């Protein structure tokens, strides 16, 4: 029983970290219909900024997180204007090409500027150490990640489903020309959404840095993980992504506990099974 509980806790924590890091991708990929393989690259930029701010400048953690989020957005704005704007509505494969290209460039630059070593984001005292749950200990920063995940999920869901901006965004994605003909300034809608997605990526990169440490190859190393999680959830659906993260987190954790030597098999077989049962992902939006 204790073991089961213990695995459940690990699964929850891992799933939520996955969620925080990948949810931004659900926005770009599901709502804006851009297969943004550079998502990890933006998460990585966030991680680097936070690491630099906290470790080299000695800023407080909260401040470093803010700096990471806004710094990444500032870096991303010109990239959106010059590059992403050209691939909205382009065929998926063209988007893949462009965003892989962007990823390569960011990796190359990060490698040049920061070197190939691991970078950490020092945690503040409150988040260090472990909390004793009675039957086991769990790292405080994981609890922090769980809370962050829940807050982000709720906020994002509200913004997309309930606000005027959310409706305009979804309309622009369905049919940009028609939305424009109804007076929606689609470029602005897109730019804002992109900024939000990138900000979330950076935030996730920082919050998840304990699990997925920041180094230049971060951008490619975890690309597949993000892609899988978001698609299994059904791109564009916040609840779907949340469920997918928790489910896949649980399968991964259990698999690694019960038979680690087949951990990968477990995980990917589960992915195949889920998609065969839900060919559009757990909560896929009908595509029209």
């Amino acid at each position, binding site marked *: 029983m204790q073991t089961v509980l213990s695995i459940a806790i690990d699964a929850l924590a891992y799933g939520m970290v996955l969620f925080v890091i990948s949810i931004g991708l659900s926005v770009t990929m599901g709502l804006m219909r851009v297969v943004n393989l550079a998502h990890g690259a933006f998460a990585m930029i966030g991680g680097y900024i936070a690491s630099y701010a906290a470790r080299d400048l000695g800023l407080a953690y909260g401040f470093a997180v803010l700096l990471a989020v806004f710094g990444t957005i500032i870096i991303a704005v010109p990239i959106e204007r010059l590059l992403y704007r050209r691939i909205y509505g382009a065929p998926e494969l063209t988007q893949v090409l462009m965003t892989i290209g962007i990823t390569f460039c960011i990796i190359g630059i990060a490698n040049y500027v920061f070197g190939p070593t*691991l970078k950490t984001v020092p945690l503040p005292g409150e988040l260090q150490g472990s909390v004793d749950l009675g039957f086991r200990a769990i790292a405080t920063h994981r609890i922090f990640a769980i809370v962050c995940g829940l807050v982000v999920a709720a906020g994002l869901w509200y913004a997309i489903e309930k606000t005027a901006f959310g409706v305009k965004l979804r309309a622009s994605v369905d049919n940009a020309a028609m939305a424009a003909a109804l007076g929606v300034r689609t470029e602005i809608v897109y730019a804002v959404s992109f900024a939000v997605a990138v900000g979330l990526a950076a935030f996730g990169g920082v919050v998840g840095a304990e699990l997925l440490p920041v180094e230049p190859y971060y951008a490619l190393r975890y690309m597949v993980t993000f892609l899988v999680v978001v698609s299994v959830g059904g791109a564009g659906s916040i609840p779907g992504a949340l469920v997918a993260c928790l489910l896949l987190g649980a399968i991964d954790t259990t698999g690694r506990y019960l038979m680690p030597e087949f951990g990968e098999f477990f995980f990917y077989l589960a992915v195949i099974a889920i998609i065969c049962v839900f060919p559009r992902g757990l909560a896929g939006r009908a595509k029209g």
Partner: protein
Amino acid sequence: DTIKIGVVGPFSGPFALQGKNFKAGIDAYMALNGSKVGDDDIEIIYRDVPQADPAQSKALAQELVVKEGVQYLAGFYFTPDAMAVTPLLTQANVPLVIMNAATSAIVTKSPLVVRTSFTTWQTSTPIAKVAKDAGVSKVISVVSDYGPGVDAENAFKTGFEAAGGQVVEAIRMPLATNDFSPIMQRIKDSGAEGVFAFLPSGPTTLGFVKAFKENGLKDGGIKFFAPGDLTQESDLPALGEAALGIQTTFHYAVSHDSPENKAFVEAASKAIGNPAELSFPSVGAYDGMHVIYKMIEATGGEQDAAKAVEAVKGLSWVSPRGPVTIDPESRHITQNIYLREVAKADDGTYYNKEIQTFEKQGDPGLAALK
């Protein structure tokens, strides 16, 4: 004349750090020993294989030999890349000096292969004795599920059982594991007193070491043993506090206290730019250059692979890592293996502190092959 040496390694990509160390070791050697052997200028030509890719490795080696006319091939971080090149050597009349790839079998693939690095068997065997001496008799082994991981598991098991210990469980986990909590739970549940771990150096070691601490294993008194890949110097700043006290066995620590090493570290630090990035592949490359220089001396700059290899069989010298010999039979390097512990220096940085020496270790893996 100019003698060209072709070096193949991961100079970009996720293992770029190791490739960078190759270059640092080579640069350091040439800085200290000149870029001339006799009348011949030495020129290094680098070729990049970012990830294990035998086809690319072979194509590059072929190009180096045929087009660039290199007399020596060197480098090779990954085993399959080295394996792909061995069939070429005889026809090309080129010796291959391996500066890293750590699977025992490579040297058996061609008589023209010489290795100046280590094998996983070589560095993992002594830690078994350390564990037993520390009073631990039940150990769980946890390794990444790929060639070197399996080698490490076997090496440890063989050594530990020979010493009278018991490996209660052997876990192989996927290379791409990010979250090690479930593994830690397994370790806890196994009832072992100690854990033997092997993970390739790089980002995953961070998660592993942190999980070990955060899940309360470290404080629970479970002892941690590993070969030195796990605490390579360039990862230590990130591992930090969590790694403190971990004991590993390895052939080289940047902190090794000897005049040879001091000179080496100084030169290599300059070559690599950021001294914090210096790690073990640099010393393999440094000694590889030493071997190649000796080969050139022996052949007088002529291209004669057999003669060159013959000349370094049994060669002994004092490397930055300590005294070493090329075993005449296996052409693999015989060297000291050190037990080290992660410690904190006065300036707040972390380093591998050598605390025990196992002298003149050969490669037990070759024996196991037979």
